[in-house]
């Protein structure tokens, strides 16, 4: 079991919006920059990796009850996005790594291995 707090420490993520549940267990992840795809396929409790920064990402994360959003390639979320994230208790983090790299490291930590995904389905 690994929590969001541990992930942030281990992967050196910069927390942009700190309201939300950081002790929550993270079981799986989802990577996509297409909102419709995230709405259709992500699962409750997933950590979402994207490069999108506009306020809609918070709406999607709230809708799907995602555990948090990691924005990649060192892109800064818009102010409006952070304001919404705080209201909705969605943790937002930033990394300078690329999506491929950060996912590789999350996977190394044991997040989202196929067996776990299979259990969820």
């Amino acid at each position, binding site marked *: 079991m690994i929590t969001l707090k541990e992930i942030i420490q281990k992967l050196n993520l910069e927390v942009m919006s700190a309201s939300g549940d950081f002790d929550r267990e993270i079981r*799986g*992840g*989802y*990577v*996509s*920059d*297409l909102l419709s*795809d995230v709405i259709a*396929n992500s699962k409750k409790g997933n950590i979402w*990796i994207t*490069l*999108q920064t506009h306020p809609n990402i918070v709406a999607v994360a709230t809708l799907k009850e995602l555990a948090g959003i990691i924005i990649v*390639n060192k892109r800064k979320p818009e102010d409006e996005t952070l304001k919404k994230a705080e209201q909705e208790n969605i943790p937002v983090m930033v990394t*300078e*790594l*690329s*999506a*491929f*790299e*950060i*996912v*590789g*490291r*999350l*996977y*190394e930590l044991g997040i*989202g*291995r*196929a067996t776990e*995904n299979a259990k969820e389905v």
Partner: protein
Amino acid sequence: MILNEVKEILEAEVIIGSDNLKIEVKIGCAADSMSDILAFAKPGALLLTGLTNLQVVYTSEISDIKAICFVRGKKPDEKVIKLAKSKNLPMLMTHLPMFESCGRLYANGLIGIGYLDIKKKNG
């Protein structure tokens, strides 16, 4: 990592280039945004994407992407395949989601885009 290993690791189907699986991809790049691919992809990269339109092919050509692997079971239509063929761009398709695809490739030693740059920065 050669394309054939990518195929095995991702349980992928080859759409174009079944006789070209020995070419080497040096870096992994996962994105559904064209601008990000253009901004960050290094020549010789393998692109993992959920987009299947014509512009993926153009973007790959412009960015010197070596091969594309479509994730989430998405298959491009004939128009896209034809364009990619004309540009000699190998294309694979995996049923796996993007997260699992990146994770498996990374675990098997394919590095990401940021890796070399960050290494450079840290000396």
